[in-house]
């Protein structure tokens, strides 16, 4: 500071200009930072406080770890964590398996009309309420629904198979709802892949599968990871679809939060919410660390 003062005026002005240019983008961040700090991090802090001061609202705060202890020692709650993670993993895997080929095919469409049609078909369901879509799936998948009817008519099954009020139903509906969130990040990366890298691989002796395995997949991995992270976090924190499709028979973490909020058991609800958050963050961090090495080179490609 003192040194800047001894500089002649034109130079001081030049320094200010450089600083102004360097930090000119900061005001653009302000709204997002403000919302994030006020709504998210402040609420998180409140959650932490509420999970250890159960009677804060009643005006008799008393520090206790009862809620945390109850969650962590009861195997039932670990089972709920397991179910939640299992649904998250299966939905993520299925969304990627369906979403990757979809994104790949969409990137190949050259006619603008057809590309637009694809986007509309894939993304239009987002415009329909999740509740409406979930009830649609309940109709389709029920014992007397269209899916069981077709399977029985074709003679593939003798008795209707239970597709709702269990994890199968949750998984089917979640994959449908979250598929656009898997396709979009992959599409944005696959679209940047130039055909000459694939041609180079084939020229060097790679058949189609080897080309995919050794060139296309590694170079599109950043998009796949982004898609997986989005789908996974949305799945484990989803409430409406698991609640309706599970029919109260499948316990997941978001259902626990709802149950304890209804019962005005705020300390336990806060604890479950924080555990859900911790799980999501831990899995995101782990996946980031795992793939960073493999795709740090691919990042360079796009700079």
């Amino acid at each position, binding site marked *: 500071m003192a040194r800047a003062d001894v500089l002649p005026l034109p130079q001081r002005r030049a320094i200010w200009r450089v600083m102004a240019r360097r930090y000119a983008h900061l005001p653009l961040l302000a709204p997002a930072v403000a919302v994030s700090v006020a709504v998210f991090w402040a609420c998180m802090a409140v959650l932490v406080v509420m999970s250890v001061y159960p009677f804060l609202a009643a005006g008799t705060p008393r520090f206790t770890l009862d809620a945390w202890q109850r969650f962590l020692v009861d195997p039932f709650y670990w089972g709920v964590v397991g179910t939640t993670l299992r649904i998250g993993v299966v939905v993520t895997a299925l969304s990627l398996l369906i979403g990757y080929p979809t994104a790949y095919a969409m990137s190949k469409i050259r006619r603008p009309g057809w590309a637009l049609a694809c986007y509309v078909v894939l993304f239009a369901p987002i415009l329909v309420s999740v509740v409406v879509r979930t009830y649609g799936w309940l109709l389709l998948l029920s014992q007397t629904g269209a899916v069981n009817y077709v399977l029985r008519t074709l003679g593939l099954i003798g008795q209707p198979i239970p597709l709702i009020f269990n994890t199968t139903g949750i998984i089917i509906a979640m994959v449908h709802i979250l598929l656009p969130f898997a396709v979009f990040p992959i599409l944005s990366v696959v679209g940047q892949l130039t055909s*000459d890298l694939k*041609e180079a*691989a*084939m*020229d*060097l002796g790679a*058949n189609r599968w080897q080309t995919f395995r050794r*060139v296309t997949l590694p*170079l599109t991995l950043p998009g796949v990871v982004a898609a997986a992270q989005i789908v996974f976090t949305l799945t484990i924190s989803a409430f409406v679809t698991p609640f309706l499709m599970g029919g109260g028979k499948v316990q997941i973490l978001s259902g626990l939060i709802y149950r304890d909020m209804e019962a005005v058991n705020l300390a336990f609800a806060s604890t479950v919410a924080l555990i859900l958050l911790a799980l999501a963050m831990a899995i995101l961090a782990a996946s980031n660390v795992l793939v960073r090495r493999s795709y740090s*080179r691919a990042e360079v490609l796009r700079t």
Partner: protein
Amino acid sequence: MTLVGADRVEDDVELREVSKRFGPVLAVDRVSLQVRRGEFFSLLGPSGCGKTTTLRIIGGLEYPTAGEVVLRGQVVTDVPPYRRATNMVFQHLALFPHLAVFENIAFGLRLRGLPSDVIARKVDDVLQLVDLPGFGTREIHQLSGGQKQRVAIARALVNEPAVLLLDEPLGALDLKLRLQMQAELKALQHRVGTTFLYVTHDQGEALTMSDRIAVMNQGRIEQVGTSQEIYARPQTRFVAAFIGEANFLEGRIAASAPDGVLVSVDGLQVRVAGDGSLPVGAPVTVSIRPEHVKLGAAAAGAANRWDGRVQDMTFMGAVVRATVALASGIAVVAEIQNDAAVGLAPGDAVVAGWAPQHTVVLAR
């Protein structure tokens, strides 16, 4: 495999009446050519002439609409690129950004399932060959343009292809580096003895590097020959205009002379050396390179010699270009050494002439 004649075995690549149609566009039009073993062969032509498509057909990256591709005596038209004994150096190199230099070069060897010690030795050898020893651990983005170029060549060469296909690989480099890489590429080809099939739109590049050149235009091969043949004996007006520069005079065959033909051009009788296979009266174009047009005393012995007047002079460094208007209004461009141009100025009367053996007759 079929039995083939001894002369056929000498060819590494043969195209038989190959055509490629993209919708309404005929990109390659009945192209036939033979590339001999160990040859540096160039496909030269303006952009859009079909040279890259022809190269990609040989590499298997395009499927021809008609015709056959033969590699070392075997028809490979239906063989996919990954089972062809060709390797390509792509125009934009197409190095794998997610792999280091070593893995880029080892890509083809790994797919062939070679043991890792053999792969390591081959990669080291080829890095030595392209003058990049110890570069195996570098990432692609750490390399300069010229180094990327060499890695791309190494990645293709390490597979020991029957023919190395090069698609304008020097196009992205600046002039100085391009000239250096031309010399290195030619020297490399000499060392390894692999057949090189080189696509370029740069006539200078093709003339300096190639053993033989095929000049292409609008999907067809106009002429195949050595650099000297293509330059000194162009067979079509396109070749004469595309390679170097030329004066074109429109005329008709007037008579056959003892050692050539006489062409009448707007009243001038131009002597042309060589066998006159064209009938008297046939419309022709006469082509003369500017450096063969002599002015003043230098034109004294020339059989084609007329009085004219200097219209315009342009100093170009080592040479001076002078436009001379002959009687009857024909203008020819002469390129003369700058010391021979001393004392010459626009408006001066001057004699211009050229020898019959430097005059080429092209059928119209």
